[in-house]
């Protein structure tokens, strides 16, 4: 998964990358100039050294130049910021509600007839459309940051913040929490999958459908009480405390961006939850016999 500010995948990140280039490029040029001046002052011809020591140069390069340059940079920064703020008012094509919780992401897409399609720990976006992420938090301050797509925006309890994205190329990017939010803050990440618009529409339609899984694992899921916290639409599991698992098998990662999705990852997560993610709310079910863990993992993996 890509996570780089220097390889932007949308105009918001472009502007930041641009600003970064100007800052680092300009800073490097100034550093070289200063080093050259130091060299000349030490070993240069006496005429140059006298010139470097003159009051006029000190005033020009030491006061006038920084004031002018920093003021220009401030103006440029304000312009960049203004364009980001202005964009927050643009009408979005896709609205995604993202709630930061300790230590995972509750995601909901607006469905066709006003219903919400619940997801978790993964965000899928269409190329070329304007996406608005509505950011909230019920517990502590989190911050949503997808370095390759945009700057970070805090998720503050009691406030609703907005993050507007316009992904320009398909790919899988990494997002993460950028505000310390407790023990497993560093283990609170998510995958951002940018897809071609047609693929995205097809995916969203699939996500809206209930789960299609059955077998021993499905019965175990209900009997063990997993449904007390997790929902799998179309089954008896209707819990809303933890992540919605209706299509968990199709996600890139498990445990909020920690484990690459797969059978072994499901088994490990269910059996040793607290080892994978310290102080996580979900209790570990390590006392289950291996066969039952495998059944559960097979069932969850089949929910695509």
């Amino acid at each position, binding site marked *: 998964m890509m996570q780089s500010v220097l390889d932007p995948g949308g105009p918001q990140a472009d502007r930041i990358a641009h600003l970064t280039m100007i800052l680092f490029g300009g800073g490097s040029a100034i550093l070289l100039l200063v080093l050259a001046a130091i060299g000349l002052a030490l070993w240069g011809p006496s005429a140059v050294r006298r010139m470097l020591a003159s009051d006029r140069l000190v005033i020009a390069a030491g006061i006038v130049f920084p004031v002018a340059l920093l003021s220009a940079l401030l103006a440029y920064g304000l312009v960049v910021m203004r364009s980001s703020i202005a964009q927050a008012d643009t009408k979005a094509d896709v609205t995604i509600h993202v709630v930061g919780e300790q230590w995972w992401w509750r995601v909901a897409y607006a469905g066709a007839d006003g219903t919400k399609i619940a997801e978790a720990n993964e965000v899928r976006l269409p190329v070329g459309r304007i996406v608005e992420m509505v950011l909230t938090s019920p517990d502590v301050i989190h911050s949503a940051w997808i370095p390759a797509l945009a700057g970070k925006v805090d998720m503050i309890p009691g406030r609703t913040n907005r993050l507007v994205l316009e992904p320009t190329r398909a790919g899988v990017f990494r997002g993460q929490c950028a505000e310390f939010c407790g023990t497993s803050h560093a283990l609170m990440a998510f995958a951002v999958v940018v897809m071609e618009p047609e693929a995205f529409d097809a995916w969203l339609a699939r996500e809206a459908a209930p789960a299609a899984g059955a077998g021993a694992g499905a019965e175990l899921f209900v*009997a*063990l*009480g997993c*449904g007390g*916290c997790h929902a799998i639409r179309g089954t008896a599991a209707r819990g*809303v*405390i933890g992540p919605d698992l209706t299509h968990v098998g199709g996600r890139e990662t498990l445990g909020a961006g920690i484990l690459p999705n797969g059978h072994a990852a499901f088994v490990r997560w269910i059996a040793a939850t607290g080892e994978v993610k310290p102080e996580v*709310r979900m209790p570990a*079910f390590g*006392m289950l016999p291996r066969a039952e863990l495998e059944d559960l993992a097979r069932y969850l993996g089949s929910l695509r």
Partner: protein
Amino acid sequence: VLRLRWLKLLSRLALKRPLQAAACVVAVIVLVAVGVIVFAWSGLYNVAASRGHWYVVDRFLRFGMENSVRARAPDVKPPALDDPDLVRLGGAHYHGGCAFCHGAPGSRSSPIVQTMLPPPPDLQEQVPLWTNQELFWLVKHGLKYAGMPAWPAQDRDDEVWAVVAFLRRLPGLDPAGYESIALGGVEPDPSGGRQLATAESSPDAVGACARCHGSEGQGPTSALVPRLAGQSVEWLTRALHDYAAGARHSGIMQPLAAALSPRAVTELAQYYAGLPPSSPEGAAARASGSIENGRRLATDGDAAAELPACLSCHGPSGSREYPRLAGQPARYLSAQLMAWRGGKGGASATHAIMAPIARRLNDRQIADVSAFFASLSPVSGEAGRP
């Protein structure tokens, strides 16, 4: 006055010649230590239990013990000690855990025990000499060098209070009264001569479970004890294993479970699992919570408070790894939830699931869900269907 003069002399010396004074003190300490070691090394002191203590030593030890207990007894308010459920639970444990050494109305302690030094006292005489808090401290912590063990589960004060409640009833109790409290009306199977002659288990162990949990057609004798009839073999087996391994804490259950052979665990689990759930009359008695609110919490949970629905695990479709709660006494359910909430009760795998949920419950909710589950009938087979 004498002591004061000594101190004056010492302090004057210490002020005038501090080095010499310090040397004096050190010399005295060394002399005493050497004397003590020589005395112990010589074997002059007789450690025989058969001999008893010298009168002065006996008075001295007793003086030290009584003062230690009085000084350390906690300053807490006991629960209502005339509570019959508490008395019956304490009595049933007394019969298995204490009577061997302390005897019981109608039966003296074993002659082996009577030759211990000090001999375990007759509690009918001793109990009135202590306050409730002192008895609590004695039962919970035991006594060094006296053979009195501490409570095996140090985090289960609730169980210790049950024993104290029974001890308060003990003075003046006649054999019939003792049996009705401690044996819970269980009639031990009359054993034949051959069985008595060859059985390895002590006759006292017979009926150990039923004293509290009941048997055919009879539920628990105390509302603080869970109903086992109709629970799954898996859950019963796991509970006994967890107690035996110390993963689940109870000063009453741990010693009993630890004494069971693997075969006995299986047999017992199958016995109780096979019993028809007895009529739950009285399970909800004295439950203070609202059944309606409890039903809501059990059915829907409370997502905002991160409380999953109880019935997602404890309902009719629940795994056999989980206990059935329908018809359990409300007081038992409340006490368990309170223990979990207080971080007590153990560290078993299922404990790790339930304890965090209990910590999110308030007193009201505990009373409500306990009342709800107590009101359900386990007989219908739909254990927990609202």
